[in-house]
C-alpha cells in the first residue's frame, strides 16, 4: 500500500509529534491502524513493566553469559600456559646446571677407579677416564689385575 507510514513516523504519531497528515493517515489506513494498535499495546506493556519493580536477579542473557565464560576460560588457559612455560624454563635451567656438574663428577670418579685398578706406567699420563685406559697395554694390565685373563689367553 502506498503512503503507509514508516516505523518512526508511527512512533511519532503515538507520541503526538507527527504531522496532521500522518495522524489522519493512521485513522484511514487499516494496515497502519493495526500497526499503531500493536505499537500502543507494546508501549503500554513496556510502561507497566518499567513502572514496576526491577527483576530480582541481575538478568544476563545467554549470549552475554557465554561471552563471560569464554573470557574466563581464555584467561585460565593463558595462566596455565604461562605457568607451564615458566616451569619448563626453570626445569631446563636446572637440568643444564646439574648435567655439567654431573659429567665432571663422573669423569673424576672413573679416573680414580682406573687409577686404583690399573695404574699406568706412564707417570705423566693425565688422570681421567680416557687416557688411563687408552692403550692395549693398559687394557691388559687392567684385565690382569682383575684376574680376567688366564695363562692361555696371555699367549
Amino acid at each position, binding site marked *: 500500500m502506498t503512503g503507509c507510514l514508516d*516505523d*518512526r513516523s508511527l*512512533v*511519532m504519531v503515538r*507520541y503526538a*509529534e507527527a504531522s496532521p497528515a500522518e495522524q489522519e493517515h493512521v485513522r484511514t489506513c487499516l494496515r497502519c491502524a493495526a500497526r499503531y494498535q*500493536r*505499537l500502543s*499495546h*507494546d*508501549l503500554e*506493556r*513496556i*510502561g507497566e*513493566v*518499567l*513502572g*514496576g*519493580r*526491577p*527483576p*530480582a*536477579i*541481575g*538478568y*544476563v*542473557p545467554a549470549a552475554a553469559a557465554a561471552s563471560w565464560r569464554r573470557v574466563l576460560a581464555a584467561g585460565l588457559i593463558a595462566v596455565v600456559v604461562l605457568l607451564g612455560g615458566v616451569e619448563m624454563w626453570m626445569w631446563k635451567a636446572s637440568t643444564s646446571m646439574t648435567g655439567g656438574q654431573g659429567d665432571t663428577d663422573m669423569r673424576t670418579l672413573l679416573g680414580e677407579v682406573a687409577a686404583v685398578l690399573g695404574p699406568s706406567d706412564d707417570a705423566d699420563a693425565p688422570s681421567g677416564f680416557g687416557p688411563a685406559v687408552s692403550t692395549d697395554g693398559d687394557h691388559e694390565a687392567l684385565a690382569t689385575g682383575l684376574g680376567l685373563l688366564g695363562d692361555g689367553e696371555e699367549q
Partner: protein
Amino acid sequence: MVTGRRPWEAEYEALYREHAPRLARLCRLLLQDPHEADDVVQEVFVKVVQVYETSTAPIAWNAWLTRVAVNGCRDRHRAGWWVRWRRRHIPIEGLDIVDQMPSPDRLASARETRERLWHAFRELPARQREVFVLRHMEGWSTADIAEVLKLRTGSVKRHLFRAVQRLRAALGTER
C-alpha cells in the same frame, strides 16, 4: 534562641510530598540502584533548601526538580560505574516475594519477558534511556526534554524512536 520555622518550610514540605515519589521513580529508572536513587533525591531536595535560602524568585519547580535529578543521575552514572558493576544485583528487600499470576507457565513467561525488557532498558545508551523515561514515563513534551537535556528536538525524536525500537524488540513483538 530561634525556634520558629523558616517561612518557606511549609512550601518546601508540600513540594517534597508532591515530587519526591516521582523523582525517586525517575532516578531509580535512570540509575537502577534504589539506594543511589534515593541519595540523588535527597541531594535534589538539599539543593531546593539552598534555593529557598538564597533566592525568592519564582521557579517552575516541576522542570527544575527533574532537570536537577537527571543531572544528578548523570553525575552518579559517570562517577561510579565500577560500583554499580559490582552491585548488579537488586538487594533482597527490593524483591517481589509474591507475584499474582495465574499459572506457573504464565508466571515463567511473564518473568522472562520482564527480565528481557529490563535488561534491554538497562542496556540502552544513557541518552535514549533519559529521553524514553522523560517522554514515556514522565509524559514530558519533546520540546521540554530538548530544553532540559540540551538537545535539539530532532535528536530527542531520534533517541525516542531508537529506544522504542530496542524495547519492542526485547518484548519480542516488534513488527
